[in-house]
């Protein structure tokens, strides 16, 4: 299966999905004009990937800002991971956060509340911003 790589822009995150290494990496800010359009290839890739019933997936997320329509898309992705987890796929998600920013931490915690797979909120070091 092909990897999915999208370069970051001001309003869209870096997307780096590696099928062989089983790593899904998302980093940056997300507030495109049309989030559903931006995330469409992301949904497609993940649907195809999950349909092959992989044994495990690691997901690393570092999103410093997510607008509401992007949040909806992220929630839809998490729901897909949740379904895969229920089927027995080993899913590990790490969500990196600036812990000094309550709103950012709250955003991560609210995503975490809605899933049952391992979802770890990890402090991001300032120099890595």
């Amino acid at each position, binding site marked *: 299966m092909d990897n999915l790589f999208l370069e970051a822009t001001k309003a869209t995150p870096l997307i780096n999905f590696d099928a062989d290494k089983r790593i899904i990496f998302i980093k940056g800010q997300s*507030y495109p*004009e049309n*989030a559903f359009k931006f995330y469409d290839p992301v949904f497609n890739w993940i649907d195809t990937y999950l349909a092959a019933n992989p044994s495990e997936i690691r997901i690393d997320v570092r999103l410093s800002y997510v607008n*509401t*329509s992007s*949040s*909806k898309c992220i*929630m839809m992705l998490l729901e897909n991971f949740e379904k895969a987890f229920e089927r027995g796929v080993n899913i590990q998600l790490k969500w990196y956060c600036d812990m000094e920013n*309550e*709103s950012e931490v709250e955003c991560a915690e609210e995503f975490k509340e809605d899933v049952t797979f391992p979802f770890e909120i990890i402090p991001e070091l300032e120099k890595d911003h």
Partner: protein
Amino acid sequence: MFDEKMLIDLQSTLGSSGILISFSGRFSQGIIEELGEAIMKHMEAEDRPRNSIYNVFAIFVEITHNIKKYAVSKLGSEFYDRIYNSGIVTIGRNEEGYFICSGNLIEKADSERLAEKLDSLIHLDKDQLKKRYKEQMKKDLPPDSTGAGLGLIDIARKSSKSMNYSMRNMQDLSFFTLTVRV
């Protein structure tokens, strides 16, 4: 005719109101990104708490996307150009903190629905707003949606005081204003 006297008056009004950034006209995604980044840099340089910077930026993005999406949704309406050109947003600071004040023309038929939605949010406390946000987040969206219906709830959640809004008749349309404080 606009002259240097009016320019100086305009600058003086902006300065005395504490306005840091203002934009009036058609919002494009590029303008939203540039202004958003400018306000973020400005607040960082002033050493504001990360949380305030984030909230001002988030409210600015949701407000300007709402204005832009509303205008785009009126494509084909006789009021399309007037609506599209009517957007204004200001971000400023006074002794109470930051404020984001915006305005745009909307069709009268939409003003009642919008007022109802805002009235239903304004008196909710933070826990009730979170509940409303989560309920809306779980709703299935029609396939042609360009938004998730979460913007105003998110603005209310990030606002430190209740938001204020107004609707003013402007010939065939209404001018809607929204003021949010952080």
